[in-house]
């Protein structure tokens, strides 16, 4: 039953990919992209936790009879996490603009006046 695990495998691969990006890249924007990939991996993981085969969106449609819904709680969690991710990303990009204004570069090997 490999099909059931495919989303998890994707999520883990994405997570490792994002982690690799933030460890290996030197450009600040690329690091932020890596962070966002990591976050998206977790979102994918959360969403696939609530998936049920053949399920529909968990909203009230008025149709009577037997129906399968996907689990709504992971979707709510993911939405919250997306909002938080958006806020973090916006903050990060705003500070990045300031970093560029002060340092004239986005190479993190040169943004290192604080040390020791």
């Amino acid at each position: 039953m490999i099909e059931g695990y495919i989303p998890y495998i994707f999520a883990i691969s994405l997570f490792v990919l994002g982690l690799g990006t933030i460890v290996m890249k030197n450009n600040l924007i690329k690091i932020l992209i890596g962070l966002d990939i990591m976050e998206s991996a977790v979102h994918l993981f959360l969403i696939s936790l609530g998936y049920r085969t053949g399920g529909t969106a968990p909203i009230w449609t008025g149709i009577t009879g037997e129906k399968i819904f996907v689990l709504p709680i992971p979707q709510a969690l993911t939405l919250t996490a997306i909002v938080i991710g958006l806020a973090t990303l916006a903050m990060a990009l705003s500070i990045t603009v300031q970093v560029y204004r002060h340092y004239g570069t986005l190479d993190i090997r040169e943004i290192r006046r604080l040390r020791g």
Partner: protein
Amino acid sequence: MNIMEHIAILVVITPLFGAFSTPFVSLAGKKAADIWVGIFSGLTFVFSILLGLKVLRSGIVIYTLGAPEPAIATVDYNGLIFPVRILLEVDALSALLALVISLIGFFAAIYSWRYMEHDTGVEKFYTLFLLLLTGMLGIVLTGDIFNMYVFLEIMSISAYALVAFRKETFEAVEAGIKYLVVGSAASTLILLAVAILYGVYGSLTIAQIAHLIEVSPSPLIWGALALYLTGFILKAGIVPLHMWLIDAHPAAPSSISALLSGVVIKTGAYAIIRIFFTLYGVEVMNRALIGWIIVVIAVITMFVGGSLGLIQQDLKRLLAYSSVAQMGYIALGIGVALIAFNTTAGDAGLVGALFHLLNHAIMKGMLFLIAGVILHQLGTRNINEMGGLIKKMPITSACFIIGGLAIAGVPPFNGFVSKLILYEASAMISPALAVIAIISSALTLGMYLRVIQTAFLGRAPETLKDIRDPPASMLIPIVILAILIVIFGILPSLPVDSIITPAVEAVKNQASYLSAVLP
């Protein structure tokens, strides 16, 4: 509307309302915004005291959002009842943390009145300040792991913005972006841990997950524990993930530094305690292994913080290194308590850790406020450019000397008492630990003696002629915190018996935390 009934949620929503109403109030001028923030942080402090009294009187307080009961009967599982709703669960540990947070927050708010007078965009500063308070209070009061993550992010994002607040300086911007990247990486790890726990147990309530872990521990939860631990070790600023702290805490405005060093990193320590002792419970985990991991990290932390603090020239950077060292002491207490749970040593470790947490919040809060006074009056943070300050600003200098000696563990101040408890607790596990702790304490003494000798005693340089004590609104918080240091030093049984011991009992008594929520 009975206030005591809703006291738990009021602690969280009072600063939240203050945060979003401040932009409107600041239309009436900066003075109005000052008063408004003072009122709301003061109200939060009062509500925290009331909450603490209620917890001490009637045990764990449960507050469910949107419904009278946390539990709901399921259709699928034959009417089985289990908690699904969002809830606040306040035991003595949470109440202690809430009290410390709102105390330091209140003083930092009053201090900010005059400290931030030369900055622009003060209403945004106040909004972020109150959001930071909201986030911290939410973390310690919530009974739900996903809400803990949400509040953690509210706290972290406000903290990133506040660190980068003085965006005209390169230091603030650089520290801000570094703090942001490592902080969000850690937050992602924590979110992954939450997702794993949700995937395994289908619940987010701490009590419910703890119950299920007790019943059927799955191997996946240990991966979640490692993720959690890494995330919160970073948030707590423990070595080897302390480097953001050293950059970020000095870069923030000083009232925020006091809050960051005093209480924000303590929420990481709180979360570690909560995860070990309540969420996972000591019965299912390999206490010796995990305890020794924490102890080893703690010992390294103490040494790194103490030894590197010794060579710093920048006053706020030195204070940040001292924070790292003191977080090591708190972690040492937690580790000892894990290794020797429910023995004399373990209890002493927990008492020491929580008492040191309280003491360090007071001491480091005060020291950072004083560093801000020096920066405000002198315009420099370099220790070598200061001198003879005790003649120019006697009250501030006296408070700094008290705080410096207290944090270095000199009797009869409060830092000595909590460190003594930690020495004895760790010596019961292994005398070598106590020796390293004492050596690290000596290093801390060295760095504070250096500051006291250079900056406060000796002769004043020619450049520092007309330096005075700061205005009253900056001085009063410092003096009150200094008085608290002395009182807690002379009368250690006062805080220990009244608030620390109930918190320790709450940490040890996982069953009552669970039974308060589970039907």
